[in-house]
């Protein structure tokens, strides 16, 4: 990755504080608790494990993603998040290495103070890294909003995002920083979208740098 990931390159990018606890769950194969500002998510990974016959794929591992909301049963929004994360994982994981198996990802929402989807994606990625699952690349989710004064705010807290005109959540890969997934909400024009994309892409480098930091701290 090299020179563009030095500290100076990010001096004008302000993400909320990232904190990660590695393997908080003792019985899962890999887990991570990630907090971005006050948004917190626990993700855990089991796998490769035995697969149900109905989900069996001859060529690939089956991904089973389960999103648990803070309270109550999963709603339609939660199921849609679950599906988005499943698709993201499918592109990132080398599923062909473990045919006829299943990789189970469980995400537990702890606190939603805006940017939940991005935080969940990052937590899942850290859990996959901790679980020793073979991946093509890592992914980083970044959230931003469009404010009434036509300003793009990167990774806002819940107070800032109340009066937002639009929400953008981008997920980037670590290779070429290509967009893996986008989720937008609200009204905006193409120029504003491109602005948000540029800002979020720049910020994704900071998250990839954070992954590396977590891995190098982990004693092997």
């Amino acid at each position, binding site marked *: *990755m090299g020179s563009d990931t030095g500290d100076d390159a990010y001096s004008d990018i302000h993400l909320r504080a990232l904190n990660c606890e590695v393997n908080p769950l003792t019985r*899962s*194969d*890999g887990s991570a608790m990630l907090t971005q500002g006050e948004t917190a998510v626990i993700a855990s990974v*089991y*796998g*490769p*494990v*035995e*697969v149900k016959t109905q989900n069996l794929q001859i060529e690939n591992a089956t991904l089973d993603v389960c999103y648990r909301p803070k309270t109550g049963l999963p709603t339609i929004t939660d199921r849609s998040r679950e599906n988005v994360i499943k698709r993201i994982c499918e592109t990132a994981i*080398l599923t062909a*290495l*473990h*045919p*006829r*198996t*299943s990789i189970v990802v469980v995400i537990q929402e702890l606190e939603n103070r805006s940017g939940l989807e991005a935080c969940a994606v990052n937590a899942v990625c850290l859990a996959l*890294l*901790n*679980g*020793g*699952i*073979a*991946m*093509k*690349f*890592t992914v980083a989710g970044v959230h931003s909003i469009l404010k009434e004064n036509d300003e793009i705010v990167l990774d806002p807290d819940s107070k800032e995002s109340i009066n937002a005109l639009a929400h953008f959540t981008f997920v980037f*890969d*670590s*290779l070429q920083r290509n967009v893996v997934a986008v989720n937008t909400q609200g009204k905006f024009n193409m120029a504003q979208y491109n602005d948000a994309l540029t800002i979020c892409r720049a910020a994704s480098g900071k998250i*990839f740098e954070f*992954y*590396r930091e977590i*891995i*190098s701290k*982990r*004693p*092997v």
Partner: protein
Amino acid sequence: MSAVLVPGEAVSEIEEVAKTKKVVLGPGLRRTNDSVLACKAGVLCKKAPNMFWIDSYQRRYVPVRGECVLGVVTQKAGDIFRVDIGAHEQACLSYLAFEGATKKNRPDIQLGDLLYARLVVASRDLEPELVCVNSHGKKEKLGVLNDGFVFNCSINLVRKILNKNCPLLQALQREMPFEVAVGMNGRIWIKAKTMRETIAVGNAILATEFVSNDDIRKLCENIGNILFT
């Protein structure tokens, strides 16, 4: 220590070596076209002159041919046993794969027995297969393990204590007599004279998970005092 790698990263060090001679890529590395990419997160390790792999943290076992594992018999199906080795699939074990076993003289294996066995088939497309004999038909260290105590740990810990440079088991055996069987699937079986000693050995092994070899050597100097106070 070498560099930390994240999945998707190209490893230029290997590409340099590959220009002049053949290289062997171990776990966590893969080749796409002309570049070598990491697919697991961890530390790049090298064995001179041309072997490379990534040492990554892992708890789930993925069967590898030739490794010794600890498994529990879960099913007797005709002429094979099904053995749980902690992988994604149960391994099979023929009743003829024991020392001195014939069609008339079946080995005495019960459901729930703990076995120390070697994997002879471990491919991602095939069911893993175990044997309890070596290529000369002798059982050596393999077979049913009676009594004792089993616990799980990470696969890194197993690799660490089986490493020749790790002084832990040698230091422990100076303190007390005990038997140990370490499965590459992250299961360890211990049998000592008393329950107290068994627990002491188990705790000593688990405590070394995140300790470097030098520190283990220091701890081992007065391991007897630590374990029994």
